[in-house]
């Protein structure tokens, strides 16, 4: 079957199912969600690109001997107890023979773009959930490929043949069920959980295994004598509503497959809420100038992203992590919306003065982010009087020129001199 023909058939299949949201569930046309989850994505790409790594414990993240953490560990390394987020020092204790590969974000992003392009050939409604995961609305599509399992198998085969990588796929009546299903048979798994099987398969599992249920929700559920997914499914809605509000009721409904099937296509997703960057120093820092230099660099990076995406923002948040792994953040509102790195930096500098003084605990990590993002217009711009308008105009032109230079020659071509200190020292 030609690709265009397949796309056409998929489109027609989905059009028959309109309106897509809110979905009307019926026995004849129940919602069907696919969750595609790449297996140990970063490590798998490194193994693909260097086959001699196969069969050996591979850790993608900070280099050996560094203060970084694991981004992804392959399945061999996981047998030694290595997992994402673990410090490199701990990896060296648990798995001294692990091969450490530095994270190559650009490479993984590129493969992710290719992955999403493959998925969009199989459903017009694809919601990327992270760099290596996506939900597909398969309600109107799967029958075109011979049923849900055949459909999922074709997607898996396309990923394997075009990217030389494996994915695990979960199929279910809701996002949560599909996501839990994809984790059941990793790697390279395929699990189809029909609505009538949800209780049998997931019922005995603890509520903590439900994606999105963290420690505090678990405690709230436990207080209601709800420990397993079965308990949740059988709990009276009125009780969940009374003690946990909408969140409790939504959890129960989605686990029963009565809601939670809505997939939001990438082009329909909500706008970004914040943009920021953070940096872990190679050595704990006690020097204020070094912190300020890095803060300026991070402010430049954050506002550059905002300008590229066409946002101005108003709330600046500073994040600090001290050497003993205590994390602090502090935020404040600017007088006006901005995308100017100096304005963000000046406020972040004030926030730093509030949180930290030379002589305080050494700093391990520093980050800055801008939230309250909006598209600039007459309501979200800057009101200038006669005296500040000319300065603002010059500043805007300067930033525009800097952006043009960076667009043409790359991000490293220009930067504020004061931000170079921490980069030069390589901290």
């Amino acid at each position: 079957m030609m690709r265009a023909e397949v796309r056409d058939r998929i489109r027609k299949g989905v059009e028959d199912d309109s309106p897509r949201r809110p979905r009307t569930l019926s026995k004849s046309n129940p919602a069907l969600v696919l969750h595609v989850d790449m297996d140990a994505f970063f490590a798998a790409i490194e193994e693909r690109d260097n086959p001699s790594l196969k069969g050996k414990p591979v850790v993608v993240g900070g280099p050996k001997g560094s203060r970084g953490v694991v981004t992804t560990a392959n399945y061999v390394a996981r047998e030694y107890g290595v997992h994402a987020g673990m410090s490199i020092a701990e990896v060296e204790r648990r798995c001294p023979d692990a091969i450490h590969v530095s994270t190559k974000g650009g490479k993984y992003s590129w493969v992710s773009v290719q992955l999403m392009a493959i998925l969009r050939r199989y459903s017009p409604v694809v919601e990327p959930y992270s760099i290596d995961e996506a939900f597909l609305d398969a309600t109107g599509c799967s029958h075109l490929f011979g049923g849900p399992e055949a459909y999922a198998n074709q997607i898996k085969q396309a990923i394997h043949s075009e990217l030389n990588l494996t994915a695990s796929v979960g199929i279910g009546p809701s996002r949560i069920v599909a996501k839990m299903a994809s984790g059941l048979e990793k790697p390279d798994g395929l699990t189809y959980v029909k609505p009538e099987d949800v209780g049998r398969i997931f019922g005995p599992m603890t509520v903590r295994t439900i994606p999105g249920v963290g420690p505090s929700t678990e405690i709230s559920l436990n207080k209601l004598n709800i420990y397993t997914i079965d308990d949740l499914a059988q709990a009276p809605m009125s009780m969940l509503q009374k003690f946990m509000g909408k969140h409790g009721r939504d959890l129960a409904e989605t686990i029963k497959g009565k809601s939670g099937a809505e997939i939001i296509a990438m082009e329909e997703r909500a706008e970004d809420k914040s943009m920021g960057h953070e940096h872990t120093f190679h050595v704990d820092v006690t020097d204020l100038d070094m912190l300020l230099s890095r803060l300026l660099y991070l402010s430049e990076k954050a506002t550059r992203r905002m300008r590229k995406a066409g946002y101005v923002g108003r709330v600046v948040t500073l994040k600090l992590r001290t050497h003993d792994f205590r994390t602090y953040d502090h935020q404040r509102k600017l007088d006006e919306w901005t995308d100017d790195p100096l304005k963000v930096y000046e406020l972040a500098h004030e926030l730093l003065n509030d949180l930290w003084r030379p002589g305080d605990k050494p700093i391990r990590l520093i980050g800055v982010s801008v939230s309250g993002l909006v598209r600039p217009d007459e309501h979200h711009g800057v009101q200038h009087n006669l005296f500040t308008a000319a300065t603002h105009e010059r500043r805007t032109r300067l930033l525009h020129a800097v952006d043009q230079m960076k667009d043409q020659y790359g991000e490293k071509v220009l930067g504020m001199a004061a931000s170079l200190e921490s980069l030069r020292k390589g901290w």
Partner: protein
Amino acid sequence: MQYEDIQDKIEMIALFRDGRIRPLKFRWKERVYRVERVNGEWVSDEGQTRFYHYSVMTTGPDVYELTYNSDSRGWLLNRVCLVG
């Protein structure tokens, strides 16, 4: 197994077809290497310059990372992973 940064300019015979580039054979240090297998490929941008990266193997187990610079239209051997 160890990686070695090389960053040498190389001569390349490649196939440009259907919007894709496939490296076929390259000359490095007066020796010609035939590309037997492309393990993976990815793209990165620096300003307006696009770089096409390839992880390839020749006749042995070593892995070569090659890059095509769309601006200079030149090829680079970035690094080699010596397995043998």
